[in-house]
């Protein structure tokens, strides 16, 4: 085992991972991961049109109770997806707010935040 190692150099990441929570300001709604993905697509198409709609966003984890999720976004489309989520302000005539809490090219770094030591590891599998 001595001296055996492999060095992997990541120059430009292919994907970015975002931790996003949907805040409905107290309104109750039944969401599952399909509906959540629909919402993201609607936001993308609403701001960036067909070009936005072509960006493939994957939901890696989704928690129904708190509406928190982890998304995987291709790095080329990160700015578009992030801005679409920021500007999406109403769902079914009710105000809503996509809170983006973490963005990173590395998935493990979403689990720990050095500024806030409560870890959010316990998300249910979809």
């Amino acid at each position, binding site marked *: 085992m001595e001296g055996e190692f492999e060095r992997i150099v990541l120059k430009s990441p292919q994907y970015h991972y975002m931790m996003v929570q949907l805040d409905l*300001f107290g309104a109750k709604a039944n969401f599952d991961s399909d509906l959540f993905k629909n919402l993201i697509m609607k936001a993308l198409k609403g701001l960036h049109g067909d070009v936005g709609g072509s960006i493939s966003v994957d939901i890696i984890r989704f928690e129904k109770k708190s509406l928190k999720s982890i998304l995987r976004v291709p790095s080329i489309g990160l*700015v578009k997806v992030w801005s679409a989520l920021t500007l999406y302000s109403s769902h079914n005539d009710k105000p809503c707010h996509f809170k*983006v809490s973490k963005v990173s090219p590395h998935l493990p770094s979403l689990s720990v935040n050095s500024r806030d030591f409560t870890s959010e590891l316990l998300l249910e599998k979809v």
Partner: protein
Amino acid sequence: MVKFHDLNIARVKDAVAQKHTLRIACRLGYEVVAVTTVLKNGNELTAAPPPIELQLTKEEQQNFQQLSRITVVLSDKTNNSYLGNDKIKSYDILAVQPTTEKSFQVACSELNVDLITFDFSTWLGFHLKHQYVQTALRLGKYFEFTYGPAIRDTTCRRYVFQNTTDFVQRKEGQNTIISSGAEWPTDLRAPYDVANLAILFGMKEGQAKSSLTSTPRALLLKAATRRLTVKSSITIGHVTSIPEKDKWKIEGSKPPSTDAGKRQNTDDHDEPKKKKSKKLKSN
């Protein structure tokens, strides 16, 4: 550490909603916030209102700073001589919103203001001439974009993007700040979200973040020189406001007490009279 600024939170009559907006701004990570009063034609000018009391934790209270700002809506007919008024000086930031080309020219070149805002939610009605923008930048003035209309209304979004990209193309976001113009807590977005929006407006990544951090900080320093100094070189303050370590500077020049002064005056009066009588006798 870098502080995030949101220098345009609209002052709303509903006190509960206002407090809620400010509390959410604090929780989203903004450390310096300015509450804006808009002054249109015909409205009364009042002195700056006191900062709104919020129930924050001790840590949040230490970092969170509330400032007051006034935005004066200009049109061709307004008489701008009152901008040096004491009531306006009571506000921390003075901003001006031109609605016509002439008022834009006056705002950029003549008026002593910190910030020039626009209502980007509709077509401006006039073109932003490069010449006037250059004058304003040379005089150290700042420009502002608000992203609130883009969130509130999907139809306004198009205009916001059109106007901001048009502006950024000319000078790449130099001396521009971005703020929310939030009337409701739902209009606010976290600082990094806004920095990402700024990239969409056409700014580069570094400039996008500095439009929320270092540029508004520079604006606040400029506002302080406008309010507190004479021609940006001299400040006048009361004797009681001098810190302990500097008090030696004034101790040498204490004014004399009133009794000693009176005695000196009477002595001076007697001497010249005696001199006069002596001269007459000799002649």
